[in-house]
């Protein structure tokens, strides 16, 4: 081996670039993404304008009037409420379900391994297409799920077309599509946990609920946070499922941010309002993620301290 001869000059070079190395490694990624800041800032600029594509003569800077309008706009507050409800309901239920499934499949064997991969299938179905299929399956008459509902005694169950059950229906579809995402991340996490604490606990005869709450859950928290973080970001920005299932209806029951912004942009071509709406969505996402990441880092530090 020529290790001895080549490593000497390498070590010298390494000394020179030691300070630079982390930047060299991370900057390409940053530079690749940084380009998006230009359209982003342009969009911020749009959000401060009275800007409707169908009235070009009316375009002009209006000093945040778009944002001020939201204060008195009941449609906006409804959007905020609906988006938050949707995000909270989906993420909470998916976390519980995803954790439960991961625990069920924790043991390594062929069956569990195969099931965990098989359960990824809903995630592989594009939400826009999955929703079309769900819409058919919940169709009164042709729909198999409506048929099952009738068999179970729910006559005339109307799923997404009834204002009372519309939210529940889209949440179910979201759970179907995205729980596998959480499940696979948590499963990976569970299986990577060190064995000693569990073996020690088993030796000492510690009751299993205690093991779960005091050992498993705390050690799994970083994985839970990562999964939650990505799900929150996506869930609060949900569009495909809701638009394909109900277009935001019935009434204003499901007019989440992206549906409103989409209609504002593509149909009404009200670029100013659309951009302002999305900026608020961005701000909410940014704040929530910040909180998550702070906790994530703190936990990481703590864990490493313990290790």
């Amino acid at each position, binding site marked *: 081996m020529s290790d001895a001869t080549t490593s000497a000059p390498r070590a010298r070079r390494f000394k020179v670039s030691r300070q630079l190395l982390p930047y060299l490694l991370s900057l390409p*990624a940053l530079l*690749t993404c940084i380009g998006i800041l*230009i359209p982003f800032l342009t969009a911020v600029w749009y959000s401060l304008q009275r800007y409707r594509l169908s009235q070009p003569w009316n375009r002009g800077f209006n000093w945040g009037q778009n944002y001020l309008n939201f204060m008195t706009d009941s449609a906006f507050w409804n959007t905020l409420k609906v988006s938050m409800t949707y995000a909270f309901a989906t993420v909470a239920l998916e976390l519980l379900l995803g954790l439960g499934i991961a625990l069920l499949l924790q043991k390594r064997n062929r069956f569990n391994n195969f099931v965990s991969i098989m359960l990824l299938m809903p995630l592989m179905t594009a939400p826009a297409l999955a929703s079309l*299929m769900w819409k058919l399956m919940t169709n009164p008459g042709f729909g198999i799920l409506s048929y099952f509902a009738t068999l179970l005694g729910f006559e005339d169950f109307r799923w997404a077309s009834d204002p009372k059950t519309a939210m529940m229906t889209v949440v179910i579809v979201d759970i179907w599509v995205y729980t596998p995402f959480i499940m696979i991340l948590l499963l*990976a996490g569970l299986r990577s946990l*060190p064995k000693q604490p569990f073996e020690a606990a088993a030796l000492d005869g510690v009751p299993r609920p205690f093991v779960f709450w005091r050992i498993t859950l705390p050690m799994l928290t970083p994985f839970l946070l990562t999964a939650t973080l990505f799900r929150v970001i996506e869930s609060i920005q949900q569009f495909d499922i809701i638009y394909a299932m109900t277009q935001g209806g019935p009434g204003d029951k499901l007019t989440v941010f992206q549906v409103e*912004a989409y209609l504002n942009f593509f149909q009404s071509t009200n670029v100013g309002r659309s951009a302002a709406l*999305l900026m608020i969505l961005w701000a909410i996402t940014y704040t929530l993620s910040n909180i998550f990441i702070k906790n994530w880092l703190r936990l990481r530090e703590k864990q490493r301290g313990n290790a």
Partner: protein
Amino acid sequence: METVNPIERVLRGVAITLVILFFMFPILWIVLMSFQTNETILRMPPSVVFTPTIENYQALITGKLETSAGILEIAFMKNLFNSFFLSTASVAIGLVLGVPAAYAFARLKFKGSEDIAFTLLSFRFAPPLLVLLPLTIYFQQLGLANTYGGLIWVYQLIVLPLILWIVRGYFEDIPADVEYAYRIAGHSWGATFRKIALPLAGPGIAAAALLAFIFAWNNFVFALVLASADKQPVTVGALAFVTASGIQYGQIAAGIVLSIAPTFALALYAQRYLVEGLSLGAVKG
């Protein structure tokens, strides 16, 4: 592992059966639909009794759809290829860019590292719709519109943050001692990264790559807006079966089956990394 009492076994069995039912039934139903035409799909009440036909698959694969109005050309296989190409290329580039960066954030604590890491993640916060209009305008001016290169760049916004944050966690889980010992023996950072860190974090990288691949595969708004018809992915292509003479549910179902198949094959192949290999416990000792 620990002994399990029979009641718990039964409960576990019931639970896993329910889970499989809920998640797999719609898939099964889609597969069944893919072997039917609207005449049997749209029945009241729905039924599982039908004569299967491979018409839908035939139409998708040969690209020729026979309708009452003549033979229509469909570009589904081209869409499938586009999806495959765009997702694979995006994930490959995402890995090349993201894995070293993830390593830097995990191992080499440096000034501003957390800020840069958060900034990278925050690119994922921007709702796609927000940047869509400016993006189309700039793409037009830069000549990136309607190029695979432009699309792959935009797809980095989907795959890079995901890869970065998941892989970072795995790098952090590798005990620093292992790497330190190797470096002490006179090896460079580069060699340590390649020979120690990469293999140990392999499963995490595989998991991140697979998830990134799925998210890239499922996206459609960017390709729709930024590229012409010959570069559209399956997600857009399958919508072509919502036709003036009704939704061709059978073909959409067949389209979904064909579009899940490659990803599923990939996941099965990566299985050992994903669910078996994700055991850093051994290393942690």
